[in-house]
């Protein structure tokens, strides 16, 4: 990373840290889902942008993380957020390995449809098995402890815009850094090679399926962490999290930010949440407006916001 982008990054992180001091509480609570989606989306983009596999069932892992936190906090009484996140990661790994083993044998539209089918399978499981998952009413989430601190003396908003905000931001930085290291490591290069020419990669001795699987599982874990963070401000894990339109929104956000840039997905998450919030207050027909944005995006600006900013709107995908 060169000096100037690094400076921009530091300034942006600093700006994010200042958000609770500058913006009204409402806007701070808007940043929370953006951070959560940010984590989920950089994971998603490892699979989509770097490996070239478009999953239309990624909401499964977000829902998995959300339900893990819900079950742990309200059913098992385990309130430590670190343990919750660890459990969410392990859970998503256990689920994603078998699913991934089946899915990575396919590419393009078949991969998309298979992941969509698995996502919907999980959705109907959540929806129908009432005793286990609470059915359509979902499971409540009890406020988790952060770093062993019982914060129940704070009221909900103070908890969310204070400790929980910095906790989420901290996780975004940690997971973002890990992902940055990963995509710039031999692993990242392998994935990009597989994306650009799987046959040639195989010819060169790259174990294509194995690397696709690794990418799939890592992206699932990131999804679960995002889901775990997403559900705490909402306070409820419900089956809609796993519905296929939610997966569609995940793809939407990633494209909005720009999938051929490392920071694109995070930018996309912030832009989407902000845009949606503004549209919802403006009109009851916000889906129409979002649809228009998406149409324009797909047709005119496939590089997303980052593609627009970084000028070099190259047709090639992948990180810089």
């Amino acid at each position: 990373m060169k000096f100037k982008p690094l400076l921009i990054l530091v300034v942006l992180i600093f700006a994010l840290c200042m958000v609770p001091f500058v913006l009204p509480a409402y806007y701070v609570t808007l940043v929370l889902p953006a951070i959560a989606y940010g984590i989920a989306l950089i994971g998603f983009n490892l699979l989509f942008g770097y490996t070239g596999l478009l999953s239309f069932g990624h909401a499964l892992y977000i829902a998995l993380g959300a339900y893990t936190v819900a079950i742990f906090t309200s059913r098992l009484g385990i309130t430590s957020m670190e343990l919750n996140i660890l459990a969410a990661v392990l859970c998503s790994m256990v689920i994603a390995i078998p699913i991934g083993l089946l899915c990575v044998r396919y590419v393009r539209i078949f991969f998309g449809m298979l992941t969509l089918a698995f996502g919907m399978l999980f959705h109907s499981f959540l929806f129908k098995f009432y005793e286990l998952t609470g059915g359509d009413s979902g499971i409540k989430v009890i406020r988790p402890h952060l770093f062993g601190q019982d914060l129940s003396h704070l009221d909900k908003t103070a908890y969310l815009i204070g400790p929980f905000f910095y906790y989420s931001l901290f996780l975004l930085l940690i997971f973002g850094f890990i992902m940055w290291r990963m995509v710039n490591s031999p692993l990242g290069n392998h994935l990009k090679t597989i994306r650009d020419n799987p046959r040639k990669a195989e010819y060169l001795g790259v174990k294509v399926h194995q690397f696709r699987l690794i990418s799939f599982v890592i992206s699932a874990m990131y999804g679960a962490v995002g889901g775990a963070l997403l559900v705490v401000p909402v306070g409820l894990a419900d089956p809609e999290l796993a519905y296929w339109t939610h997966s569609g929104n995940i793809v939407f956000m990633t494209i909005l930010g720009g999938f051929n840039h490392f920071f694109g997905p995070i930018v996309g998450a912030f832009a989407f949440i902000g845009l949606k919030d503004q549209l919802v207050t403006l009109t009851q027909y916000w889906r129409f407006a979002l649809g228009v944005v998406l149409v324009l995006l797909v047709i005119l600006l496939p590089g997303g916001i980052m593609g627009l900013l970084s000028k070099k709107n190259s047709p090639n995908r992948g990180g810089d």
Partner: protein
Amino acid sequence: MTAYLDIILSGIFHAAVLFLIAGGLQLVFGVQKIVNLACGAFYALGAYFGITMVGLAIKYGISQELLIFILLISGIVIGLIGVVIERLLRLVYDREEGFQLLLTFAIMLLLEDVIRMIWGATPKTLGNLSMVYGQITLGSISIPNYKLLVIFASVALALGLGWILQKTKFGKIVRATAENRRMSEALGVNVIWINVVIFTLGSILGTIGGALVVPTSAASLEMISEVVVEAFAVVVIGGLGSMRGALVGALIVGLMRAFAVHVYAELELLLIYLIVIAVLIFKPNGLYGKAAE
């Protein structure tokens, strides 16, 4: 025994409607190679428009006996919206599948709110207008004749489509274009025109499906995303791009659902997705799909 007859019949009715939607998906995928996520929106559009048209027809004193024809015609009329939407899709024909999929997702969002603007968010029904055709009573069960008519109409449409695709010159051109777009373009086929016609035909199948189902169940905004996954299940089981596959897939999904609801309601959709996954794993091209990749 009669209980099973009831299940089979409701399964076939469901399959008849599903076939129309999935058939539309298959047509469009076959020629344009786009999986149309907006097919559910067409379905809902057909349903709402059908209700409005039937309301108008009754107001102007048209006999209720003509219900099914009114619905068929209104399905065809509103399906012509496909001409406009194809214009939008045309911009991404040579782009990656991900973007094509996302554009149809956007169209779904747009149409959903168009429906909300025109008809509002509350579900609409036609009451029990379908009983105008009476019912057959067999022992302990009674079968509304309307359902039989819908099954009949769907079969007729399937046969008609089959005839067009297999026997007419237009059908040959369509199949040739689906097989090799460049080649048929080189041979002087007006591919732009074929695309418009096929996409509109696909939309019309979806809207007719919606219009026909509406006398038996309410038109709601939920039906948009719900039917998409079912239609997906059908095309995956049957094989992408195959009309015969859509027919068989629709029958499998329709009957499976009817039986699952009867035996163990929790399994309803779960079972369908399990079948979809099994098919994708063991026979990724579906029952009738051509080898891809």
